[in-house]
């Protein structure tokens, strides 16, 4: 039997999973939409992965990352639960050991990670606003009647991108509507949108950070050729986009799961495990904490959200 390690990255928009072997080769991978239900998405993800997994592999470690990492970590009984910043850095470093800058734009957040000699030296994450992230792109694609996947190709067609006020998603949207009503062609608007994402990212997250090459661009938005093109243009540097860029977080957490393995063999039979969450509000003090209680096979495994620590 050979050893495999599962990494799951549950983001706000998409759920990614990979299984790697001892030498960090990807054996199976899957990328599906979260659709607001991480538990269901992960069940489907595991089923997809199981189909691709050769029968002579056994899972020796599980790691979870992304915004639903804690919940899914409990569900899968993961041996490591880590934040997405560390996971992305570790994942990228396994393929590009001398990377200096990682630009990452995901569904809901965007980050920049600076590295030197294979260690993180600084990082930043968007704080208050989601302007210039994947969810903004996908909602705008919908209003223009396009699929997000075609967005990049459209943007490349344009020779004259329009300028869009992109400091804020709401203002950007009204500006976008205005430009469309005035009569600008669709591809110019889309190109302007892609460019505005780049400028917004650099002004907001990348502010005050020294961006040095080699630069790697990842996260769901890195699949958009338009954004990549404008990053190259604005930074005047080469941007590397790995074919597995959308899976980097999952790979990183799988690598970490391998490094922290406990020797236990995991079973991927998910369908017969019952997993429920119950939300209640506690009224014992004026804090009115929202408590989330998590049940696995009707047995309480954890409860979150209390300020006093009673639960």
């Amino acid at each position, binding site marked *: 039997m050979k050893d495999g390690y599962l990494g799951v990255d549950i983001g706000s928009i998409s759920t990614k999973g990979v299984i790697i072997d001892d030498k960090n080769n990807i054996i199976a991978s899957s990328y599906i939409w979260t659709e607001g239900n991480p538990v269901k998405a992960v069940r489907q993800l595991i089923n997809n992965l199981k189909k691709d997994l050769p029968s002579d592999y056994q899972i020796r470690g599980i790691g979870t990352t992304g*915004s639903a990492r804690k919940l899914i970590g409990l569900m899968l009984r993961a041996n490591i639960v*880590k*934040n*997405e*910043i*560390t996971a992305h850095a570790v994942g990228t470093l396994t393929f590009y050991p001398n990377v200096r800058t990682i630009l990452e734009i995901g569904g809901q957040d965007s980050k920049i990670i600076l590295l030197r*000699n*294979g*260690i*993180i*030296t*600084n*990082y930043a*994450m968007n*704080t*208050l606003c989601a302007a210039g992230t994947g969810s903004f792109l996908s909602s705008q694609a919908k209003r223009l009647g396009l699929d997000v996947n075609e967005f990049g190709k459209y943007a490349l067609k344009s020779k004259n991108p329009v300028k869009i006020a992109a400091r804020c998603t709401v203002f950007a949207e009204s500006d976008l509507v205005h430009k469309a009503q005035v009569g600008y062609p669709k591809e110019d608007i889309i190109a302007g949108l892609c460019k505005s994402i780049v400028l917004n990212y650099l002004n907001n997250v990348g502010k*005050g950070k020294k961006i040095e090459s080699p630069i790697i661009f990842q996260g769901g938005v890195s699949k958009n050729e338009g954004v990549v093109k404008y990053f190259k243009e604005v930074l005047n540097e080469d941007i590397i986009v790995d074919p597995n860029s959308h899976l980097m977080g999952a790979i990183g957490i799988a690598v970490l799961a391998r490094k922290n393995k406990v020797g236990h063999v995991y079973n991927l039979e998910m369908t017969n495990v019952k997993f429920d969450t119950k939300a209640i509000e506690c009224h014992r*003090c*004026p*804090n*009115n*904490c929202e408590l989330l209680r998590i049940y696995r096979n009707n047995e309480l495994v954890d409860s979150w959200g209390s300020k006093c620590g009673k639960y």
Partner: protein
Amino acid sequence: MTKVSFPLMGDYYVPAKFLLNHILKVEVIEPPFISNKTIELGSKYSPEFVCTPFKYTLGTMIESIEKGADTLIQMGGGCRYGYYANVQKEILDNLGYDVRVINLVTKGQMDIGRIYRLLKEIDPKVSKLQTVYYSFLVIKMVKYMDLIDDYIRANIGFEINDGEFLEVRNLMLNDFAKVKNYRELRRLYKDYFWRFKKIKVRKPDNCLKIGIIGELYTIMEPFSNYFLEKELAKNHIEIKRFTTAHYLLFEKAFKIKKYIKYVKKYIKYPMGADASDNVARTKYLCEHGYDGIIHIKSSFCTPEIGAMPIISKIAGEYDVPVLFFSFDANTSETGIKTRLEAFYDMLEMRREK
């Protein structure tokens, strides 16, 4: 009888209540602890883009008025804090509460004569001698509390039995509230320091050390920084913090010039509030082998916004990572945890190499 209350900040309500109880013949109403209700009330009636401490203090004020208070004491000066008392009085008037709001600090300075006059307004029979005696006693009490907190902050992350430090600290605060004279206070302080030293800790020599700097209220009121220090202690980190009540009220005036001289390469003039202090502290932390710096402020805190680029520059020169946090009334707790976790991972990785 006049019923006096004051906004909360950390555990300093103990000396504040002690002082008021001893010098004024008034009923002191202890403000309720800050909870989600406090901040909801505060945000509801505050201007939207005011700094967050305004919202917290306004919320506590309303809650203590509901408990029966009719005179509220507010401290603060140096930046927008100086206007809090007046603006809050206006807001409370508009809400229909008939209360008096008194600001003890003017232009960022403690003017003893003025404070005495203000106290006389509350209680005309206030005794000069007693006021002086108990003021000095309370200054000492605050100093002792801060010294003990410094020790706790450096060690709480490494305690073997969880919660031991906080347990002893609560006992200490209870006893401090009951002291009668200077000698008793000093004896209690020595006793408790000894008890804290006896608490077993498992502290490695090369543990991670983080300095916390930033805007004063957000630093000192744990609810408003989402219990950041507790979160750090869980990860076994030694914490250093400079801003304390004793520093702000009695040391700052003498130290500020020295601080500006220390960082004269970067700043020339005082930048208002604690901004120049924080610049100096950044340099101090960088030079004394701290692994990282966390800078926290409330949203819209103007002096700190001015200090942030200088702090990044200094930290960049010394190659020490800085994490900036800006807390508002409705910041997502998960976001804070993710960033802190990543910061902690980064420091660990840097150590390993």
